[in-house]
């Protein structure tokens, strides 16, 4: 279980790091890689998984979605999940320890793994919540332009 200090730090990271990064992530996909916002059902499905699953299940879901045989008309979903998987992997293997400094030192390997999963689940949920809001806004803006 995460400590109050870890939860407070995650909440601060959510505001100062994850919120702007989530907006930049989607804007890069849409404006630079010419992708489209995800359909509402897709993005809400991802949010639901992030709310109800542990990190391992969330990661499996993202990889499964990435590896699905998407038709050309749904290429944006493939791009989205490919980039999201890369981002989560980098967060887990590098930023969690080096940038975010959330990990408790002096734990045995089982405790460390469990803590890492809990931290990643919390960070991923924050990130995905911001993705949902930005995705909705960008999808509406696209509809409005048509």
């Amino acid at each position, binding site marked *: 279980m995460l400590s109050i200090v870890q939860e*407070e730090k995650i909440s601060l990271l*959510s505001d100062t790091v994850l*919120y702007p990064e989530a907006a930049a992530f989607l804007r890069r996909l849409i404006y630079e890689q010419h992708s489209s916002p995800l359909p509402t059902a897709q993005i809400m499905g991802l949010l639901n998984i992030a709310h109800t699953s542990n990190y391992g299940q969330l990661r499996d879901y993202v990889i499964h979605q990435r590896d699905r045989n998407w038709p050309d008309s749904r290429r944006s979903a493939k791009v989205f999940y490919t980039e999201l998987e890369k981002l989560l992997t980098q967060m887990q293997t590098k930023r969690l320890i080096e940038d975010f400094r959330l990990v408790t030192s002096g734990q045995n390997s089982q405790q460390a793994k469990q803590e890492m999963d809990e931290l990643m689940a919390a960070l991923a949920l924050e990130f995905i*919540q911001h993705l949902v809001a930005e995705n909705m806004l960008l999808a509406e803006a696209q509809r409005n332009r048509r």
Partner: protein
Amino acid sequence: MSTYQEDTNYQLKRIREISNQVEIFYNEAVVLGDHAAHAFGGRSEHRSQMTGLETIANSTFKTSDVFDYVKKQTARHREWQQTYPDGGAPNDRFGERLLKQLQEDLAKKRDGIANRLSVGDKTDEDRLERRHIHLLLMREFIRKMVVQYEYASSSSNRRREG
């Protein structure tokens, strides 16, 4: 408890700084309140969206909760997408205009206050304090905007009824 929370003198200075900023942005809050009244009218089902925004701002500890709420409301509801010809920015939609105000303009005011009060930005304690200042500014802005919204929409309702 953080150093900032324990320092009564600092807290009094912060209150004064926030009050000064409220005086400065009051007119902007009024214009956005008028924009909201134009977009939402005084209908009760729409009024709850304004009070919902106020509730979120007053209850959360995260600035991004408020930004996400504004984004989602803007995407979902036609009223949040309405422009306002009389409000000085005829092409700007209500939700996007409010988001810019909260996210960018008040962030600049937060940084100004933090600099004047010598709040750094290197430690988590400093960042938490900066966030708290931002939240206090947002709460005040939204409060003033919603008051103006209520006033402007009740005035227009009275005119319609009269």
